[in-house]
């Protein structure tokens, strides 16, 4: 293994600029003549707008322009995935105007934009806008929404976006009816607010000389924004629309989507003839960044006498919020129900999913997206079944694992897993967690009056999103390939243009390692360029742990084309047959001779082609490739969490977190561990701390860091992480993806550990987030029931 190639923990190449304050995030950019936008937002969850009087605001100091929905009649913010109902009819797809058209549907809905010389002036002027609202009753609770009455969209009956199913309900019901044992739980997957540390921002400008629009934006996928905003909302042709996503301070899904503010500043730029900058403050982020999760589910697991799973039945209600965000509709369907087999051989599975509109912020993918919801309910119900049947937690899992020699494995819910070894990750996690020593630690806790519990989660997820043919057949309105362009410069350095986008993942390092390994170059000869639609040919962006498995493969394909072309050049110069040229360690040699050319010499020759036979050999050395994966990738693993509960206060201390994950081949172990740590923190955050709460009027009660509990350093322990490797069977690198595993696997392990700690008291369930209050109440409830 080289020190800079695959498998090396190379220190990140991007760190210098971030550590010295020289990163360039969107809000760091200022353009000559720039104005500032402030968005006036609805204070009501549901209201009719009778009139908007902007006259006083327009006369306020510094105001350049004010626009309302009446001014901005453009296309609707589109949804990228069409789901069909059980009966074959398409989902309800109400419009989503960037500025409200006569009605507001959630607190934070955009009502008007004030553009002024300074942000302070824009903000002050916005206070002078008089909006006459007629408040309407709000519907927040999904069950109430389904009962009809108050409609978020007048033309969507019972607030039902779709009623979708997967599997044969009759067959599953039959298996459940005949089973030895059935475990049933009602599960809530709590609503989360993503909270990337960099608030969203956008700068729109228009160059009258060229007719080109430019949008700087905090996006995980600039080309997707160009396509959605250009083609659907503003009708700007792509060759006149440049989107730049520079350094982006975290995304976790929330920066995938096309947001109203991007369209507003781009649309308004030519109208005011100056660049317009908008930056969210954190309060705006809380009410406008797409939220995550928010499922209510009933799950039934049927087992035979030995604890073997016979059937799984799931009915889920999924909150869409007030409008359909870009990928909202695929999260509770194709990213969720298709994962319900988990790591088990359950033969029949049924999922029914109702997606529901409410007067809340739109909900969409957040780190894991659908897969955390699936793994949470599977691992909760498996844990409960094991307790009810008196089977040890590891044993019930081993009994039902898809065996390592059964791959490729076709699940009953559409997916075909290509590789995995769930025993291996369970074994290594149990060893690293020192499960053998748990009894002694439990006794020590008891001696101090504390309750200790151990929780398991064995999970699989589907990422490396995604084979276009598959997702297309399931309703995706896009292909999910990736592009890469490899430009070899005349002196032998390489610039790679990738359609992936890095916002913390360390692509500039990991991708450079691929180049170093493949072309034999030192890292300082490699530049990874991303995030600018005028530089990168095309890209579908970064989400669903796809950057390496899809974007990296595109790069490999393009580099292989470079090697092929270089061999032609070397064969010509060295006067040998092309078939006799070998490439190794950055050198092209004629097999069996000492004749050789370095990569740099080939590059220079390509650009100084003094004696090229131009009919058979083109000058230059640059190649493009598109890669569309054959299948999803399937990382999996085992997370074991150990908690200590103080029964007097309900405080849960997370004492040990052990993750053994199979993410396929590891390119940079340091970065892979870092990704796992971050995912674990978000998963533990969901399990213990984070919960988005609306009151019955649709007011967000957890709208700041004073109210929404972000995981802080002293909420978390150090993590034990390790990797077992089975290679992905359908890509050349054998990679699977690591971005989301931590957030997918860990929440059920935390809750199962708390249930384990409290099981002696008779507690069988605790919902997320397991706050001290909830845990204390569960303890008191169990004690009262026992008396």
């Amino acid at each position: 293994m080289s020190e800079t190639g695959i498998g090396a923990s190379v220190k990140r190449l991007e760190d210098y600029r971030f550590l010295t304050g020289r990163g360039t995030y969107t809000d760091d950019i200022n353009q000559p003549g720039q104005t500032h936008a402030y968005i006036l937002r609805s204070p009501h969850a549901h209201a009719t707008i009778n009139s908007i009087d902007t006259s006083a605001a327009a006369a306020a100091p510094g105001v350049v322009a004010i626009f309302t929905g009446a001014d901005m009649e453009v296309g609707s913010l589109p949804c990228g995935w069409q789901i069909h109902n059980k009966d074959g009819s398409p989902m309800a797809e109400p419009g989503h105007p960037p500025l409200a058209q006569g009605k507001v549907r959630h607190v934070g809905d955009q009502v008007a934009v004030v553009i002024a010389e300074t942000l302070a002036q824009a903000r002050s002027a916005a206070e002078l806008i008089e909006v006459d609202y007629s408040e309407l009753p709000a519907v927040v609770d999904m069950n109430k929404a389904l009962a009809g009455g108050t409609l978020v969209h007048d033309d969507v009956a019972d607030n039902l976006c779709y009623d979708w199913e997967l599997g044969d309900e009759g067959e599953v019901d039959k298996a459940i009816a005949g089973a030895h044992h059935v475990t049933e739980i009602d599960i809530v997957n709590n609503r989360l607010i993503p909270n990337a540390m960099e608030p969203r921002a956008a700068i729109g400008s228009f160059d009258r000389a060229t007719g080109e629009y430019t949008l700087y934006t905090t996006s995980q996928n600039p080309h997707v924004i160009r396509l959605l905003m250009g083609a659907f909302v503003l009708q700007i042709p792509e060759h006149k629309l440049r989107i730049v996503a520079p350094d982006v301070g975290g995304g976790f899904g929330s920066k995938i989507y096309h947001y109203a503010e991007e369209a507003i500043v781009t649309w308004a730029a030519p109208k005011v003839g100056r660049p317009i900058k908008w930056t969210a403050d954190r309060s705006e982020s809380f009410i406008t960044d797409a939220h995550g999760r928010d499922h209510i589910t009933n799950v039934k697991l049927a087992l035979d006498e030995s604890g073997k799973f016979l059937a799984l039945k799931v009915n889920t209600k999924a909150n869409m919020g007030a409008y359909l965000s870009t990928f909202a509709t695929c999260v509770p369907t194709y990213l969720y129900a298709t994962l319900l087999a988990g790591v088990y051989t359950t033969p029949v599975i049924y999922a029914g999913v109702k997606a529901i509109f409410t007067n809340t912020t739109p909900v969409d993918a957040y780190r894991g997206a659908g897969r955390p919801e699936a793994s949470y309910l599977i691992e909760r119900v498996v844990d409960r079944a094991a307790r009810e049947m008196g089977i040890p937690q590891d044993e019930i899992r081993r009994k039902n694992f898809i065996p390592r020699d059964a791959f490729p494995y076709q699940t009953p819910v559409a997916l075909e897993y290509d590789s995995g070894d769930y025993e291996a990750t369970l074994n290594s996690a149990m060893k690293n967690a020192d499960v053998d020593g748990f009894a002694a630690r439990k006794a020590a806790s008891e001696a101090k009056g504390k309750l200790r519990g151990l929780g398991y989660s064995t999970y699989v997820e589907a990422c490396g999103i995604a084979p276009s043919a598959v997702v297309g057949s399931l309703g995706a309105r896009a292909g999910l390939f990736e592009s890469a362009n490899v430009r070899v410069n005349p002196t032998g350095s390489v610039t790679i243009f990738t359609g992936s986008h890095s916002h913390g993942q360390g692509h500039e390092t990991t991708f450079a390692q691929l180049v170093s390994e493949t072309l034999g170059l030192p890292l300082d000869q490699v530049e990874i360029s991303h995030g600018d639609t005028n530089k990168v040919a095309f890209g579908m962006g970064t989400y669903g742990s796809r950057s390496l498995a899809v974007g990296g493969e595109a790069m490999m394909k393009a580099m292989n084309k470079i090697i092929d072309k270089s061999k032609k050049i070397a064969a010509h110069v060295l006067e040998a047959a092309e078939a006799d040229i070998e490439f190794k360690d950055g050198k092209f040699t004629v097999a069996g001779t000492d004749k050789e050319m370095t990569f740099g010499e080939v590059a220079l020759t390509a650009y100084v082609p003094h004696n090229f036979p131009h009919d058979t050999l083109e000058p230059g050395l640059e190649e493009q490739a598109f890669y569309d994966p054959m299948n999803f990738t399937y990382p999996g693993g085992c997370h074991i969490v150990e908690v200590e509960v103080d029964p007097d206060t309900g405080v849960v201390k997370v004492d040990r977190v052990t993750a053994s994950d199979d993410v396929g081949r590891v390119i940079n172990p340091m970065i892979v561990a870092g990704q796992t740590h971050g995912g674990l923190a978000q998963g533990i955050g969901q399990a213990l701390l984070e919960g988005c709460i609306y009151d019955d009027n649709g007011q967000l009660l957890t709208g700041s860091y004073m109210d929404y509990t972000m995981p802080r350093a002293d909420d978390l322990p150090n993590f034990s992480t390790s990797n077992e490797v089975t290679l992905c069977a359908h890509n050349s690198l054998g990679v699977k993806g690591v971005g989301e595993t931590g957030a997918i696997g860990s929440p059920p392990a935390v809750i199962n550990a708390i249930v384990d700690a409290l099981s002696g008291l008779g507690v069988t369930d605790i919902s997320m987030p397991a706050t001290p209050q909830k845990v204390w109440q569960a303890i008191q409830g169990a004690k009262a029931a026992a008396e």
Partner: protein
Amino acid sequence: MPTVSMTVNGKSVSGEVEARTLLVQFIRENLGLTGTHVGCDTSQCGACVVHVDGKSMKSCSLLAVQADGAEVTTIEGLANGEELHPMQEAFRNNHGLQCGFCTPGMVMSAVDLANNNKNPSEEEIREWLEGNICRCTGYHNIVKSIKEGAANM
């Protein structure tokens, strides 16, 4: 409008500001030092931490006029030329950053801790970081970085 003068990263600077201007706005907008970030509006996240007269402060919670006459150090002033400060080096060495947005505040905060405690325990570090939120790293590598950085300062 009031005029404020202060020393920022060893240089004397002054500017006219509205009285309501926060120190972080003065640093970012008047001085163009955009390494100091704004991540919230309730003084919780710590992305804006700088040193004011040698102590770490959230620059979103001070008015620019309150820093009149002060010695301010921002993340841009920490390295010695091209040579990273030991705390910056430790963050790089231990993968203590991912997206980089909270990083300037984390590093400035950590330097203040280390100035007063050469050998902080893991628990002391985690407690000290109560005012700095990171969404990417799960803090594991930040804690490691600070331990190493403090030892090397």
